[in-house]
């Protein structure tokens, strides 16, 4: 397989509701990525795109609907979808286009517009549940997080205040992100603990917001990197993904073993045998604050139940030993599902190429890892990148 680098990234603002159409959002993010890589659409061999359920937009096969915005016509184009895992999965799909030699330069564009579905995108989330076993109970998607969070907290005896620290850290980190929707420099643990209870133990400030937005990345082969004289390529050194059985009521939710398996797949490729020592920073998927902790453990960055302690001790702060979600994450920047690629793989690129501006991690960094997560507590995608 050929070496693959990211050579440019772009994203739009993340907001609760944006005026732009999906097509316009894709165009904006893509144009920014092309400009960053000093390329034009004619240089792109293949396009990969990711977006969550069509039902948010109310347009079936929306990948085709917004494709023009991605420059995705008269070219090979592929849409991939792994639920919430899409943000880190479509870059993997673009990676295999380039790694295989099929394309020399691939563009990946992720888009989400959750505001089109009103009054709340939650009504559409109901469609992911099993029609016979779950749906008669009228479930809200927040329930799966609440049930997983409670199991995780109870098994490890983790206090809610230690989980709230993640929301505080990420919303504060997001102050330095120009695209952020919910940055808050003054938020405290008490604010999180006093926020409205939605589905115990989940409170309002434990959750990332629904958002509109798009993001784009440009991936290039080693040959293309040399030919284009790219100064700061950031290399994909490992990719992994894994899904567990759909029978989610038959397994212990306290640990995401499918993520551990995806991580091992990526680490093997990246020749990482001691993730805690060999990885300098992480962008774990953080749609809820406890998910960052859950994912740090699944990414094997610490032992089971230890992530809360690392957070409490400041290890995961931007200036800590293992900075985690330096972008501000989904909790601070926003959660336009697939478009969170911009704060996950995008942030790895910006950090490792020294372009993160006010968000730049102060210590020297060489290796970062990110993941995304989706479906019914089932799926995870992992990318390891190196400067």
């Amino acid at each position, binding site marked *: 397989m050929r070496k693959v680098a990211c050579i440019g990234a772009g*994203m*739009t*603002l*993340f*907001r*609760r*509701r*944006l*005026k*732009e159409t999906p097509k316009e*959002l894709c165009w*904006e*993010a893509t*144009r*920014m990525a092309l*400009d960053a890589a*000093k390329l*034009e659409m004619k240089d792109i061999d293949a396009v990969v795109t990711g977006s969550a359920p069509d039902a948010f937009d*109310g347009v079936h096969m929306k990948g085709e609907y917004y494709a023009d915005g991605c420059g995705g016509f008269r070219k090979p184009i592929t849409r991939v979808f792994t639920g919430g895992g899409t943000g880190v999965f479509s870059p993997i799909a673009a990676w295999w286009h380039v790694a295989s030699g099929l394309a020399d330069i691939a563009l990946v564009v992720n888009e989400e517009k959750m*505001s089109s579905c009103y*009054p*709340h995108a*939650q*009504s559409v989330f*109901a469609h992911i549940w099993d*029609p*016979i*076993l*779950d749906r*008669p*109970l*009228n*479930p*809200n998607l*927040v*329930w799966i997080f*609440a*049930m*997983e969070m*409670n*199991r995780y907290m*109870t098994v490890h005896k983790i206090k809610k205040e230690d989980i709230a620290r993640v929301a505080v850290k990420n919303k504060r980190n997001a102050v330095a992100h*120009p*695209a952020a929707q919910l940055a808050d420099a003054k938020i405290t643990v008490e604010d999180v603990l006093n926020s*409205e*209870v*939605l*589905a*115990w*133990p*989940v409170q309002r400030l434990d959750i990332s917001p629904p958002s*509109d*937005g798009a993001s784009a990345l440009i991936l290039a082969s080693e040959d293309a990197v040399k030919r284009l004289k790219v100064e700061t390529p950031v290399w994909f050194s490992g990719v992994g993904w894994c899904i567990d*059985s759909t*029978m989610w*009521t*038959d*397994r*212990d*939710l306290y640990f995401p073993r499918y993520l551990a398996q995806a991580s091992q797949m990526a680490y093997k490729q990246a020749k990482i045998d001691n993730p805690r020592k060999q990885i300098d920073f992480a962008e774990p998927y953080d749609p809820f604050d406890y998910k960052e902790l859950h994912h740090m453990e699944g990414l094997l960055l610490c032992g089971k139940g230890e992530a809360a302690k690392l957070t409490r001790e400041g290890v995961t702060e931007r200036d800590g030993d293992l900075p985690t979600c330096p972008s501000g994450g989904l909790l601070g920047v926003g959660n336009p599902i697939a478009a969170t690629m911009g704060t996950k793989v995008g942030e790895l690129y910006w950090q490792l190429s020294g372009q993160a501006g006010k968000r730049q991690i102060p210590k020297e960094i060489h290796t970062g890892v990110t993941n995304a997560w989706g479906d019914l507590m089932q799926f995870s995608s992992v990318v390891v990148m190196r400067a």
Partner: protein
Amino acid sequence: MKAHKSPRPKGVAFAGEALSQGQIDRGTALQTRFRPQAKYSWAAGQAMSRFLDELKAGRLIARKCYRCERTLFPPRMFCEECYRPTDEWVYIKDTGTIETFSISYIDKDAKRITEPIFVGVVSVDGASPLMGMMHYFGETTKEEIRIGMKVKAVWKPAEERTGSVLDIRYWKPIREARR
């Protein structure tokens, strides 16, 4: 960098124009609306049809896999681990253990509700460890409910059952008999 035309204001790297609820309500942000009329009727399938029939009869049923020796619940016609057909129907109990739970103050559309819904996963006695289903809990309080609590199904009266998971009203705590 090549020049291109973009609605992005000069000097702003990240594009996008936020709309407020006020602009929507006042109609100053133009929109088009549509309401889908899709309706669905799902065939319950081989395993779930029997499962629903048994619920109607007031019983819980599972499938046994002879190879891994698991008692699979909810029942399925193939064992996903062994990747072979399952072998036998077996009745299991209507008691179990709360594996996890939530107390929900929102309904399925994220509307606020005053009477909270107690919901979670109950692993059912007689099935293999941890195997269970999502359901409601009742006759308990937010102070009392806890992970590890033993519970029993509260069934609807036979004439009200329709062959649905809702034939069980909820699961209630099994309290030690007072001495």
